[in-house]
Each structure stands twice: as C-alpha cells, then as structure tokens.
C-alpha cells in the first residue's frame, strides 16, 4: 500500500515535528506500525491540552500524543505569559522592580519580594533591623501557607473534587485579609522591600495572626479527612508520576517536588538565609507506602507525596509563625535606605525557599542606580521541565494528576 516502511515511532516523531513547524499541531497523524509486529492499527492523535484548558493552571500548553486514552508523549510549550521581567529589571531601580517580582509567582508574592530584597541587600551589604527580619519571615511563611492552600485546592479540583477548593479558599481569604490589613493589597503586595518592610505591622496584628493560627491548625486535619486520605484520591494519585530522587536532582527540581521524592533538602534548613536558623521546624519528605500514615499505595516521589508534603509544610509554617510571634522584637522595621541607591559593580546570586521551590535572583550592578542584569530562576520553570519525562505512557487523567502535583505558576515559568 505504501512504498517504504519506516518504523512507526520514527515516522510519527518526524511527522509530529513537521506538523509542529507548520503551526498546525492539531492534524491527525496516522501511524503505520510495522505489520509484521501485528500491533493494533490505531490512530494516534495530537491534541492540545491548553493554553486554555481547565487543568493546566493558567496558560500552559501541553502537546499530547495520545492513543485512545493513553498518552504516549507530552511536550510542554510555554511562553504565553512571557513579559521579559528580566529586561524590565535592567531598566528600573531595585525598589521599582519589587512590584514586578510580585507578578512572577503571584501566589507567593511576599517570598519573591523577600528574595529579591535579600539579593539586593547582599549586593549592597545592607543590614536589616531585627523587627524587619521577623516581619519578613512572618509574611513569607504566611504566604507559603496561602500558596500551598491554593495548590491543595486546585489539586482537588484537578481530581474532580470541588469542595476542597472552596475550603482552601475560605482559609486563604483570612490570610489575604491579614495581608490587606498590613499593606492594602490582596495579591501583589510589594510589601517587603529593600531594607525591610515598607510599613510596620498594624496595631493588633500579632493577636489576629495568633487567632488565625489557632483557627487554621485544626483545619488541616479536615483537609486530610476530606481529600488526602480519601480512597479515590489516593488511588488516583499514589504511584502516579513517580520521580526518583536522582531524576529530581538531575532535572533541578526544588521545593515540594524535590522533597516529595524523598530528598530532605530545604534551603531554610540546609543553607539558612535571613533568620531561619533561629526556628525549630521539620522538613517533611515523601513517604513510602504504609509508613508514617501514608497509604499503602504510596511510593516515594509520586503525585500523592508531592501533594502531601505541601499539607505537612503548612503545619510547619504554622510552627514557625508561632515562634515568630513569640520572638517578635520591637524597633525599626526598615533600615535607612538612601533615596537613590547606587548598586556597586558586584555580582551576586541568591536563592530563597519559595512556595514552589527555590527562587533565585542573580543581580549584577555596575555603579548605576539600575542593575546591569537581573536573572530570575523560577522554580516552576525547572519543575515543569520534567513533565515530558514523567508524562509518558500514562492516561489522560494522570496528566492532570501529575501536572497538578508539580504545581506550576505560569507567571513564574514564563517570567
């Protein structure tokens, strides 16, 4: 029927590439497997999952090569939210750049502010007053809880459970209220800035935070009852999308994705920055099945563990916050920052533990008020790069489970 027979996989790969280049990815690719092999003649399809798809968390586009329900290959295409934040960073002063960092990982904006401020302060050799440092840690941890809440809720949504999402947002709302009381904003705070915080904590804030922590801590058990140990949820996620520790390190995974693979690595503990060495907290890692309350089906590095690490991290953040409240000193919340900052001709690279992994900033000064170069390492960018490796020979439903557990924020991937 056809002239020369090429191996099916070969041909299909070529065909896919050709189609991609033509900008018509949604064309059927017919596969002609070797007849001698006697494989089922099926039609492999290329489908676009995203950039407008409910479970790709924003504008991620996954190109799936599927055979029925089976995903043979998954290629992420990113860049739909690219704003070239690094170029902006070269054109504005560090203080002006703070609002841009809000828009990277917009679910954990405080931690981005924190990281960039720390990098610039390291470049300047600036010291931040004690109270300012505590405020920063409080805000970072509170925002980590908020960010993990969104991740938890959205993951439930990916698995078809609607209610956890609303529960998560109910609690997140209180955190956002607290943030609003602090700085007036609810998503892009720009609150932590070079030298400390932009304002002091409002009166009564520590009491309200304590009130929230008392309220929030028991809720985690509720989430576990509702979702984490739900048998259907466990069946959907445990053992799905297993990433080994070696793979996780090779692909540069950080944050809950790395820890879910059983690597007990957290910058706050391993390379302590700011004042994290003053607090006592544990680093949760992925658990093998049947150990430490994990369900029997669980495997270290699977989607369930990545998800559950986030739940446990919320508890640890609550611990840190309680210690912060105990130790919170009075005094200045901000160092004296000159009106015009001249960045010295130095270079620094600094990473902090963000909501999704290690947020890194490389800042190069050359004696002017604007940096010569700002490079941002988005953790989601690195975490997402493993998707095509993991999403292979899985079902379509597993794609949602895996991508959801990797938990990317496209603002950070595309920058």
């Amino acid at each position, binding site marked *: 029927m056809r002239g020369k027979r090429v191996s099916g996989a070969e041909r299909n790969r070529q065909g896919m590439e050709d189609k991609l280049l033509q900008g018509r990815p949604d064309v059927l690719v017919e596969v002609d497997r070797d007849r001698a092999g006697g494989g089922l003649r099926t039609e492999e399809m290329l489908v676009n999952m995203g950039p407008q798809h409910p479970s790709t968390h924003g504008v991620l586009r996954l190109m799936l090569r599927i055979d029925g329900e089976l995903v043979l290959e998954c290629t992420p295409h990113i860049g739909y939210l690219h704003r070239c934040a690094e170029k902006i960073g070269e054109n504005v002063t560090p203080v002006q750049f703070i609002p841009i960092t809000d828009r990277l990982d917009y679910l954990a904006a405080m931690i981005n502010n924190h990281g960039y401020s720390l990098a610039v302060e390291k470049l300047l050799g600036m010291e931040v007053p004690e109270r300012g440092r505590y405020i920063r840690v409080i805000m970072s941890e509170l925002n980590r809880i908020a960010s993990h809440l969104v991740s938890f809720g959205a993951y439930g949504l990916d698995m078809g459970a609607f209610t956890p999402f609303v529960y998560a947002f109910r609690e997140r709302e209180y955190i956002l209220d607290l943030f609003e009381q602090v700085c007036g904003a609810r998503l892009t705070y720009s609150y932590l800035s070079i030298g400390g915080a932009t304002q002091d904590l409002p009166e009564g804030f520590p009491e309200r935070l304590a009130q929230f922590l008392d309220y929030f801590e028991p809720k985690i058990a509720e989430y576990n009852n509702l979702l984490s140990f739900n048998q259907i949820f466990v069946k959907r996620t445990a053992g799905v999308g297993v990433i080994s520790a070696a793979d996780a390190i090779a692909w*540069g995974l950080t944050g809950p994705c790395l820890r879910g693979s059983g690597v*007990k690595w957290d910058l706050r503990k*391993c390379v302590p920055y700011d004042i994290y060495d003053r607090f006592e907290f544990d680093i949760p890692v992925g658990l093998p099945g049947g150990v430490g309350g994990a369900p029997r089906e669980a495997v270290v590095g699977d989607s369930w563990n990545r998800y559950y690490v986030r739940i446990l991290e919320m508890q640890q953040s609550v611990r840190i916050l309680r210690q912060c409240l105990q130790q919170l000193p009075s005094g200045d919340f901000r160092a004296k920052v000159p009106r015009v900052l001249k960045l010295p001709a*130095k*270079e620094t690279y600094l990473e902090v533990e963000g909501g999704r992994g290690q947020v890194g900033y*490389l800042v190069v000064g050359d004696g002017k008020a604007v940096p010569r170069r700002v490079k941002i390492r988005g953790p989601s960018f690195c975490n997402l*790069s493993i998707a095509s490796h993991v999403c292979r020979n899985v079902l379509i439903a597993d794609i949602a489970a895996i991508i959801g557990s990797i938990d990317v924020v496209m603002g950070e991937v595309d920058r």
Partner: protein
Amino acid sequence: MTAQEVAELLIARFGTAVEAAPVEIHPGVRVTPEAWPAVARFLREEPRLSFNMLRCISGLDLHPEPQIELVYDLIAMRAPTAADGLWSNGGELAVRIRVARDGGSVPSVWDVWRAAEWHEREAYDLLGVGFDGHPDLRRILCPDDWVGHPLRKDYEFPKEYQGIPSAAAAAEGEGGCGASG
C-alpha cells in the same frame, strides 16, 4: 568546599582551560568552551565535588565587548549521613564561560544535568547563544517566529509583530521615547 578549593582542584586536573574567577560574593571558575563538557562531567562525578544540581544558567551580555558570559550556578547536595536524614550543602560554585556575541556557541551539558535543557533553550532564546549538541534547541519563551534576542543590550523592540503594532511603535507615534532598552 569553597570555590577557591574547587578552582585549585580543577586547575590541577584541566590546566589552562580553567582559571579561578574570584568575583566578589559570587566566586567561581572560568572555563573555556572547549573544555566545558569534560569539566562539567568532572564537576558532577568527582566524589569530592559532586555538584549534582544545576540551579541556573544566566547569560550576561557584555556589550560593547563582543562577548556574552554564561554563568552556571551549581550546588552540591550531599546525601545525609546523620540520622535525621537531612541533606547538606557541599558547596556552591559559579562557572563562567565567555562566548562570542555573534554566532558563538557552547557545548551543551544537557546530558550532564538534565536541568540544562530548558535553561540552555532560554539562553538561546533571550540572548542568542548557541548550544552544540542540544537535542531540541528551539525558542522557549518567545514565539518561534520572533526576531531578535530580547536580553541583548542593543535589542530594539520590533515595531510590529504579525501585523499587530507594538507598544513601542505606539509610544513613538505619540512622540514619547521608545521602550527599547
């Protein structure tokens, strides 16, 4: 292991292809592009070093010098020895490689650190550095038909893209200054 010790170790092994780059608060080594794959493999596999994680690849445009400097930030994550299972920091290192701005390329290290695959694509996309041996060197953040490399210092923002006038063109039309950096 400090960056200085690493540099000494590397110089002992690779000779002139490596030199120390004691940049203040971001120390590391400078490597020639030709030696880079061997150095990379050595950095990762030598038990004393074991820089197993590539954190970031940053490209610095040295305009008006006709060169681009690539900074590879590495960290050595040491497997736990204590009972608490906590991994430890075995040292950080910044590897610097300079390439020509026009048509310069570096050997790809995607097979040493898989994380490099996307980081190299990003550097290719935004700075126009080539990576030899990369399996899939396409633009990653900008559209495939984008012209130019935005993070270069002499980059001019295009007046229009696929028939859509850009903000830069609009600003020019109003008599303001262009947004190109």
